[in-house]
């Protein structure tokens, strides 16, 4: 039996927060096990307990510097329910939607252009010094500038609707605390056509990559799974802000449909495994072995009956055609799906900017107080659940969150193992480029392992390689 070898291992880069990949080799250099361990944020439930319900939508943004708006809106939706409000005013709902589309757009743009593009443009096995945004800019300088301006556009929409860049206060229980001025509207309308043009180009880039690398996309970290997301009530259209839950099998069979998200705890169970802090949710009726599922952009392309914005629907049909209308199980197709959602968001932003309800003054609805609230939203990375109970003093007594990365935990682990087995097993020498394949599989899910500190000197990312005797062969961490 061969001796364990010292191997240089690159860190898991371009993934947010604290994460660790462990890869176990047998004596023949075959991958026996490969796992992604995510250090999930803890202590939030304790932190939020005793807080007044009115401050929760603001406080929850402190969970995450990557997608604070998603937490803001999911918490606000839960607090709507507690405030007894089942239907917001038109201005309230449309301002929140505008905020959400701005958030999803800028988040997806960051991921695609800055984190995924180096892999897609130069190849997964390209030298590490080549796989970065600076090399992308050298090849395609206009792309880099567009990405920055699209991000800025989305961030400005967030600031206009939430009030501030960080710790926005826009969404409040029962509605919103501001409308959009004519001046703000005209500012955003001034460059909306350019945003649409650039989003169309981004869809083309992602589409062309997927189709030109059909064989790679078909095999790379690809496997059948169930899919779950919100879809619009009634017609099942893509709806990132609100709707009912739909789950499909890998072949497109409906597992459940149009289920109110307030029943999420009946529909899914959060499983626990000894080796991970992060839970493994599964669909209750299918059990832990068959019931795991994926969420996120590709899941949403699979579950949505259609997209209600014309340009994105053309792109959606194009993507669906690749698999003859059945769910697409290719992990890498997430990039294409992500860009279709950027296009959808920009179309929605244009639609909303032309809607006079954004200048309305009826901002907050009222209802009969309840003790429990559940808010669900389709965040950039997938389904996000916030669940609270409050007492008679409006203080939070219970809190449960299921974030997108938790929903995708099993899928990401399967992708890591699939790619490790295919690309690392049996090789005498394991190169940095080979290990980057594992990272590419993780990055396709754009996992937000955030909710972590980002102080100077921290080293939140680690990869560990274990030899046949179970001993640690190599470990590497990196400050980000």
């Amino acid at each position: 039996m061969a001796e364990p070898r010292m191997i240089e291992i690159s860190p898991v880069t371009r993934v947010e927060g604290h994460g660790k990949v462990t890869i176990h080799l047998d004596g023949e250099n075959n991958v026996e096990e490969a796992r992604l361990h995510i250090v999930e944020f803890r202590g939030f439930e304790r932190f939020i307990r005793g807080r007044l319900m009115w401050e929760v939508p603001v406080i929850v943004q402190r969970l995450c510097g990557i997608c604070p708006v998603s937490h803001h809106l999911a918490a606000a939706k839960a607090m709507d329910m507690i405030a007894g409000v089942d239907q917001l005013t038109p201005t309230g709902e449309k301002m929140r939607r505008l905020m959400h589309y701005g958030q999803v757009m800028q988040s997806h743009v960051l991921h695609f252009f800055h984190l995924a593009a180096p892999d897609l443009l130069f190849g997964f096995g390209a030298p590490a010094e080549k796989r970065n945004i600076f090399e992308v800019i050298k090849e395609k300088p206009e792309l880099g500038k567009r990405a920055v301006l699209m991000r800025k556009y989305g961030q400005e929409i967030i600031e206009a609707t939430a009030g501030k860049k960080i710790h926005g206060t826009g969404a409040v229980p029962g509605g919103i605390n501001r409308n959009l001025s004519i001046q703000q509207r005209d500012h955003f309308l001034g460059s909306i056509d350019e945003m649409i043009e650039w989003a169309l180009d981004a869809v083309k880039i992602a589409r062309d990559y997927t189709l030109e690398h059909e064989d790679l996309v078909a095999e790379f970290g690809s496997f059948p799974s169930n899919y779950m997301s919100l879809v619009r009530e009634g017609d099942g259209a893509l709806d990132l802000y609100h709707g009912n839950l739909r789950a499909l099998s890998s072949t497109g069979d409906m597992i459940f449909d149009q289920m109110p998200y307030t029943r999420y705890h009946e529909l899914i169970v959060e499983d626990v495994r000894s080796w991970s802090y992060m839970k493994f949710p599964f669909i209750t009726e299918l059990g832990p072995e068959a019931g795991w599922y994926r969420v996120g952009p590709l899941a949403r392309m699979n579950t949505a009956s259609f997209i209600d914005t014309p340009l994105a629907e053309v792109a959606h049909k194009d993507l669906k055609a690749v698999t003859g209308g059945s769910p697409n199980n290719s992990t890498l197709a997430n990039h294409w799906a992500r860009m279709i959602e950027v296009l959808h968001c920009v179309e929605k932003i244009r639609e909303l900017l032309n809607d006079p309800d954004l200048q309305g003054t009826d901002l907050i609805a009222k209802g009969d107080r309840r003790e429990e609230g559940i808010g669900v939203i389709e965040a950039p990375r997938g389904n996000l659940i916030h669940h609270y109970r409050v007492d008679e003093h409006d203080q939070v007594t219970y809190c449960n969150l299921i974030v997108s990365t938790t929903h995708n935990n099993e899928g990401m682990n399967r992708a890591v193992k699939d790619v490790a087995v295919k690309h690392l097993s049996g090789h005498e020498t394991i190169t940095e480029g080979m290990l980057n394949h594992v990272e590419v599989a993780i990055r396709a899910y754009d996992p937000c392992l955030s909710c972590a500190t980002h102080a100077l000197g921290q080293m939140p990312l680690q990869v560990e390689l274990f030899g046949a005797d179970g001993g640690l062969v190599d470990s590497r961490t990196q400050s980000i």
Partner: protein
Amino acid sequence: MLLIGYGNPGRGDDGLGPAFSESMAARGLPELEVDTDYQLFAEHALAVSAHDLVVFVDAEIGRQESFSFTELEPGSPEILGSHSFTPETVLALSATLYGASPRSFILGITGYDFGDVKEGLSEKAAANLAEAEAFFLKWLQEQTSEKEAAHA
């Protein structure tokens, strides 16, 4: 001049950067544009490119001193690897995309408590913040005097 304080105020001493920038913003200092964010992103390169002097402010771990103040150079590409950017990569992006390389510094304020989700700074970090503020205000005054002398 642009000041960017960043960090997560919901993570104890990680909020040192925002606490610093919000304190400076509240003073309404002339010629000082202040930005506060959770993290650094690509679009900060655009803001950086429009200034001739930039100071990044972040929490720092593991230093004996209460704060550090270091001049920055644009970073090498391999340190770009996250949703969030380092100051060096923001500078490199500014230089690459916009051809602008303003003189830049990082003010790292030493923090101690980053573990749990909680608001507020630790007592020692708050003291470090006060020291860093006093240092920065003095430094800013020197910069202004130098600039005025140069224009005289």
